[in-house]
């Protein structure tokens, strides 16, 4: 049971991180395509966005490891 729970937690965390990061980076790439001079500013905000979005999926991975150990 622990294995199924850990797999579900890690899998859903991966889906969440994938969709979230994909949206952020996709919009950034589109913005850079529209205005290449804004690259530095957009890159800064992209990293902030990735850090914020990845917080909860990484907590999900930690939960998966915690459940795996029981």
């Amino acid at each position, binding site marked *: 049971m622990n294995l199924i729970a850990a797999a579900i937690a890690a899998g859903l965390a991966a889906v969440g991180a994938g969709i979230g990061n994909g949206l952020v980076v996709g919009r950034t790439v589109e913005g850079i395509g529209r205005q290449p001079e804004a690259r530095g500013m957009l890159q800064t905000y992209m*990293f*902030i966005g*990735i*850090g*914020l979005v*990845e*917080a*909860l999926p*990484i*907590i999900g*991975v*930690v939960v998966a*490891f915690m459940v795996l150990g029981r």
Partner: protein
Amino acid sequence: MVVKFIGLYFNLTNVVMITVASLIVFIIAVIATRQLAMKPKGMQNFLEWIMDFVKSIINSTMDWKDGGRFHILGITLIMYIFVSNMLGLPFLIEFNGHEWWRSPTADPMVTMTLATTVIVLSHFYGVKLKGAKEYGKGFFTPLPFLFPLKIIEEFANNLTLGLRLYGNIYAGELLLSLLVGGLAHTGVIGAIAAVPVTMAWQAFSIFVGSIQAYLFTMLTMVYMSHKVSHDH
């Protein structure tokens, strides 16, 4: 490893690692400020770069008249968290079933302490700089019925600020120990395959560690600016 001493519980691993991180940051700062010159060279250049970097973080959230007093706080946070995140990457020392050398930020207690310190500090500076009445009115500012949401926002900011740092560093270290302790021991092919994967994961952990240090400092200044700055 947790010991009880005069009725208080101390996690000896954290005590050792926090002392090591503080010592390293102190030594970096002392070496960088030997022989201060108007034209900086060497380590002084590096510390001036850090100071300019934190100044740009503060400038992007509040104007320098309000935010200048948090410059040293920002420099301390970013250097301390960056060094703490990097400490667990070269090696992890385990002795008698207890870990003795790992990143101090891989423990939720340390990161939640940092996050709570920063949030309480922002409330303290809100009261000190704007006065208690302005601070109280700030909770009802855009629309009064959002007051419970503002209270929940404080707790949610606190939790996510601490747990984000913990989750990133702990997951990185856990995967590293699984790779080195698990994959490298399953036969010859496992050992050969573990080398490039571990190198890639080490590089990614360095990247994540620096991003998380930068993000923690940036979010500290953002939360500070919500309480302190006037032009909202």
